[in-house]
């Protein structure tokens, strides 16, 4: 497994601590304090994943992200101290793959790094971030918004959204509970780890006409779940 990670963060102590956490978990880490150092590191050897702080001296994280995206498909996780939605959306729209808000726990960063590397190793093309549609529903992966057939926005928990997005990206395919779990960051959120079934049941409450007799998300005995509608990307 490729495990060469580049942290771009101007606070040396923070970068060092984060690097320590990742190294303890078997990852190979380099640190850059700004955009120029990042370029120098990348010239020396390519990185498999970049953790990018937004507030940097000189060229800021957004600009670096845009520049990187123009050249490579390297997975990018953005670190931001502003947990605001607009920031996250800007980051994801210009091509970042994930987003972590300070202060983060080591476990959270590690989980996101691993999840992202796993997804890349599956060959999921990064940047397929346009809205998806099925049966009048619209799912926007960047804004993390779902709109129903009557154009009203439907709110969802993080896990519900991740599940729905996972279903939309794999229509007509039976997804096992393990696969669904890996598609989501579920389990990171709180002390109570819900099973995939609980999240699916909640999702059905919101998108199915009759949650007791679902037509979108079907339970496959001994298999997992099947998403039946045709999904189009526009």
């Amino acid at each position, binding site marked *: 497994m490729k495990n060469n990670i580049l942290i771009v963060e101007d606070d040396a102590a*923070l970068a060092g*601590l984060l690097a320590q*956490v990742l190294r303890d978990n078997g990852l190979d880490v380099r640190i850059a304090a700004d955009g120029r150092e990042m370029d120098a590191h990348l010239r020396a050897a390519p990185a498999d994943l970049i953790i990018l702080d937004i507030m940097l001296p000189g060229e800021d994280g957004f600009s670096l992200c845009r520049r990187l995206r123009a050249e490579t498909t390297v997975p990018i996780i953005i670190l931001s101290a502003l947990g605001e939605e607009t920031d996250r959306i800007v980051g994801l729209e210009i091509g970042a793959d994930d987003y972590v808000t300070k202060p983060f*726990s080591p476990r959270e960063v590690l989980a996101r790094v691993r999840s992202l590397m796993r997804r890349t190793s599956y060959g999921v093309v990064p940047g397929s971030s346009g809205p998806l549609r099925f049966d009048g529903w619209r799912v926007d992966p960047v804004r993390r918004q779902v709109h129903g057939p009557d154009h*009203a*926005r439907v709110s969802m928990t993080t896990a519900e959204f991740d599940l729905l997005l996972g279903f939309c990206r794999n229509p007509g395919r039976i997804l096992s509970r393990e696969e669904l779990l890996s598609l989501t960051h579920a389990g990171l959120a709180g002390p*109570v780890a819900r099973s995939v079934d609980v999240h699916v049941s909640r999702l059905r409450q919101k998108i199915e006409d009759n949650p007791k007799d679902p037509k979108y998300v079907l339970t496959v005995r001994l298999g997992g779940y099947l998403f039946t509608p045709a999904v189009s990307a526009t």
Partner: protein
Amino acid sequence: MRVLNLIWPHSIRRQMMAIILCAVVFASLAGDFTANALKNMHMGPMGVEDYTFAMTSVARMVESLPTQARAENLEKWREIGIDVTLISAKEAIEMARAPTLWARLSAWLRQVPETLSPGFDIVQTHDATVLTYPISDQQVLVFAPPVHSLLDDGTIHYLAAASALVLGFSVLAVRGIAAPVRHMAGVMKATDSFLASDQPIPENGPREIRELARGMNDLRGRIRALLEARTAMLRNVSHDLRTPLTRLRLRLDRIEDPSLRNSALQDLRQIDDMIDTTLEYLRVGPAPSCFERSDIASLLQTICADFADTGAIIHYTGPRHLVAECSVNDLTRAINNFCENGLKFGTSVRVTAALQGAEVLIDIADDGPGIPVDLREDMLQPFVKMDLARGSAGFGLGLSIAAEIIARHNGVLELLQNEPKGLLVRVRLPQTQSPARMA
């Protein structure tokens, strides 16, 4: 038009001067006209001095005539407007007996001149005041007192000028001054929307009012710039705090003792929450929200699910779909806050929603101690906490942010008593918002 524009009085001072000038001109014209008209109608009253002089002359002349010719002579005087009669001395004594109250009052009102020629007397009869002049032991001349009417020339001039002034000023006051000032006050009353709006106060009316409007518009710009600078500064401070906080967070994970680590993590989470709320409070600021059609039921279910996943006892009951126009993020924040408070002070929270006419009714009920009636209003103010000893977490901004959000949705927030115990937060939102603010 350019000439008119040049001579048109643009300032209040000039408008006032123009009105006074117009009033004086009007008064002198109108006064002259009416006085002439009155004089033409009948002889009109003479001046008091003239009348006194005339009375004296008449009295002297009649006195010089032989007794038989006197009555006849008086006719002539009456024809030219001097009301004079001749009575016997006995009748004069009879006449002066017991004036009525009305006679006294009218005597006072008509102001019989105090300076009388020698020989004249003022006599109060039972229904009038008259002037008497005894011309012999037997006969007494009786004059009606000079007509000192309220409607003499001076009074007419005065009335005409005053009414012209009052009329002119009220037109100026209503049209020129009061209307723009009232409009300005109306705009300023809604301070938040005034600060947030880009619509300038219209600069019309007299020059002073226009300058005031311009000043207000400038002031708004400056207040907004000041607020934005403060907000930016505070945001930067809050933002910069996050980097050392992250270092601390990463270091805490290296603490071996689990109980120490957990309590340290809890402190850290509290600091982070406070930074969050501060940023939130600054963000909500005076900026208007963007509304979109949204399923409120799914919003409430999501909030309840998120709390339930942290182990809290919280339930949603209500319709599965309930579409209304709202700002999803803001409303989520507000409801989240109510639920968080409910779970902090109580053990379980019940969220219900219903559509009542054109209003969405959301109840968040807990089983905590509730809030005493007299403290409920205060709780919605920023930095107010109910119990300093207990509520150690947070700044006391949560409820005021939530209240602000509900107000921005043109909704109503009520803190009520939950039965059998606890607090019932009732939110009433219009199902549709004015189209201007839709996303």
